[in-house]
């Protein structure tokens, strides 16, 4: 038993964070919102310099952990690029993302590539082509619709589970940075003659947020390890991670914004950018209610690993 991230993955994550910070940290998201070409012009070269293209998380546990650390670093700065999809490229170089059913698929940064590979936890897989410009909305500035083409071989379940897991890592980066910003803010800001951090009501909110973030951190690592050691349960575990990640994002971002006061909704403050730009990761391909429904069905079919497992063929 050793819950620590492998040293190489931790170093890779630290290098990625340093590179993204040098790019301007959250400012690169602000710049990309004003000029979407910033994504290819500024972000792609940095990912290339990190060697992200050579990172295939399906290879082994160490590489999967490194990909997780990369997505986490991206989440910390709302990096405007679909990192999880990029590291899960198929043999033809198509970025790979999990998608729901239907004729069109809504994908974050879908406009960046001409063709995509879309995968589902049920194993479905197919190629889709770019069909729209980005939404340009405040909560989905780079979200684009894709038109599905022909279906291909089954076997996308593992990639879908890995995409969901890597997105969990990205959400982790986002919430841990949001919590750091909240801590920094309440340590600086004074009201009623004392720092906000001295109010116990504030301390308790931070403590609950910190426990949720620590839990997500553990669950990301556990899910990544389990995907490599027990691929058969990958879909159930990925959905469990997604459910926890979505709930953690909801509560931690809410706390972080609330503790910033009105500044929490102002784009001058990083917490507002983090909260806006993470929304596609929380809503696509499905949100918490659908995640829970899928998880219930998956537990019924495959069971849920625990000290006393439940569901699955035994039920």
């Amino acid at each position, binding site marked *: 038993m050793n819950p620590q991230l492998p040293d190489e993955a931790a170093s890779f994550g630290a290098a990625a964070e340093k590179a993204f910070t040098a790019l301007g940290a959250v400012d690169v998201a602000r710049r990309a919102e004003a000029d979407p070409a910033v994504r290819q012009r500024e972000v792609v070269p940095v990912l290339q310099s990190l060697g992200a293209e050579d990172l295939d998380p399906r290879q082994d546990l160490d590489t999967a952990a490194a990909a997780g650390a990369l997505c986490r670093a991206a989440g910390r700065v709302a990096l405007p690029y679909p990192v999880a999809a990029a590291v899960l490229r198929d043999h033809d170089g198509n970025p790979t993302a999990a998608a729901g059913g239907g004729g069109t698929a809504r994908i974050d940064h879908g406009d960046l590539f001409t063709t995509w590979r879309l995968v589902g936890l049920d194993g479905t897989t197919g190629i889709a082509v770019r069909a729209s410009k980005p939404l340009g909305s405040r909560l989905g500035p780079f979200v684009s619709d894709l038109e599905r083409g022909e279906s291909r071989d089954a076997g996308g379940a593992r990639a879908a589970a890995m995409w969901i897991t890597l997105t969990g890592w990205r959400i982790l980066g986002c919430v841990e940075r949001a919590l750091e910003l909240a801590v920094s803010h309440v340590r600086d800001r004074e009201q009623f003659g004392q720092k906000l951090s001295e109010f116990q009501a504030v301390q308790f909110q931070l*403590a609950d947020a910190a426990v949720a973030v620590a*839990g997500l951190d*553990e669950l990301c*690592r556990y899910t990544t390890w389990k995907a490599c050691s027990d691929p058969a349960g990958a879909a159930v575990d990925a959905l469990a991670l997604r459910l*926890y990640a979505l709930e953690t994002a909801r509560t931690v971002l809410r706390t972080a914004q609330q503790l910033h006061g009105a500044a929490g909704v102002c784009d001058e403050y990083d917490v507002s950018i983090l909260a806006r730009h993470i929304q596609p990761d929380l809503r696509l391909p499905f949100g918490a209610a659908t995640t829970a429904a899928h998880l219930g069905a998956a537990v019924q079919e495959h069971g849920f690993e625990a000290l006393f497992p439940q569901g699955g063929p035994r*039920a």
Partner: protein
Amino acid sequence: MDYDVGERALQLRGRLRELIAQEIPEGYLGAFTDDPADLDVAQRFCRTLASEGLLTVAWPEEYGGAGGSVWEQTVVREEMWAHHEPRGAQYMGLNWVGPAIMAFGNDDQKRRHLPPIAAGEVIWCQGFSEPGAGSDLASLSTRAEPDGDGFVVTGQKIWTSYAQMAQWCVLAARVGAPGAGARKHEGITIFLVPMDRPGITVRPIRSMLGPHHLNEVFFDSVRVEPDEVLGGVGNGWKVIRRALAHERVGIARYARCDRLMSEYSDLAGGIDGLPPALREQWVWALVQVRVARLLAYRAVARQQSGVDDASASAARIAVTQCDQQVAEVLFDALEQRSIEDKAAGAPLHGAAEDHWRYAQAATVASGTIEIQRMLVARELLGASK
């Protein structure tokens, strides 16, 4: 990065489950129920564990233990709590009274107390909390007045589990006047006192937890001998801190949550057998129990590597909250039958009803959730908040 507890710990889990299946009756809800026969089950089971060396897995080999790894100790905690702590009241002696005596006791005290604890033959109770000193334990006011070469103890303890059946008490009392402010822990002294000593009165407190869990203990001019001091006069706070460190990670409540949810799932025919409105809560509880277990493992791993941080407090917050959440989800599933107890023929032999009652105290026992939040926040905000 590896979440496998290791071969030895896995074998230990298997052996413990075998012994439980052989010796613990179906529907057993712990030693402290309205049925006195349940206490006999625990006493017998302790002797069985002792005969296989499984009662003292955590103890160092020099004291007759197995010198088990922290993960073997974790497995013991999980399996015992999952199966309604079939060691009864013994866990307190094993988990921290014994180790505290190893650390602070003199040779006579070790000879006298450690063998009966290791054999599962003696029950200890913990005389720490007082009506005026709960979370703020250093404010305790029970006095130990020097008298000849010994002491005379006067005061009141409260919430003392197993006091009615315990043979011995680890008593915290104050010698001399309390210090001011941050020095108020000065003078606190630990005594190892036999519960049949004249002047000790135990009064049970009726509670939803059932018999034996909560008591008041009154010390009325109780004579205590000098060789009953543990760790030296005035060193009690050090002993208490050590004791609390042993209990740092806390009860493996997530293990019972896992077991009850698994058993109810079997009963209902899986998630599809649950009311549709409950399924989302059910899977959310499953995930939370998993996260609570992982946070407990994180705290164990940090403790093992000598890191002294708030990870144990974080784990306790998650573990105690998931305990209460699972209690509610099970009750929602059982609906009208939730309030039936074992005697009334409740589903799961009354285990859900028992769990709900215990869960109400989960966020209070052994350090309230508010204290844990303060510790987590303190670490987060740093000393200069």
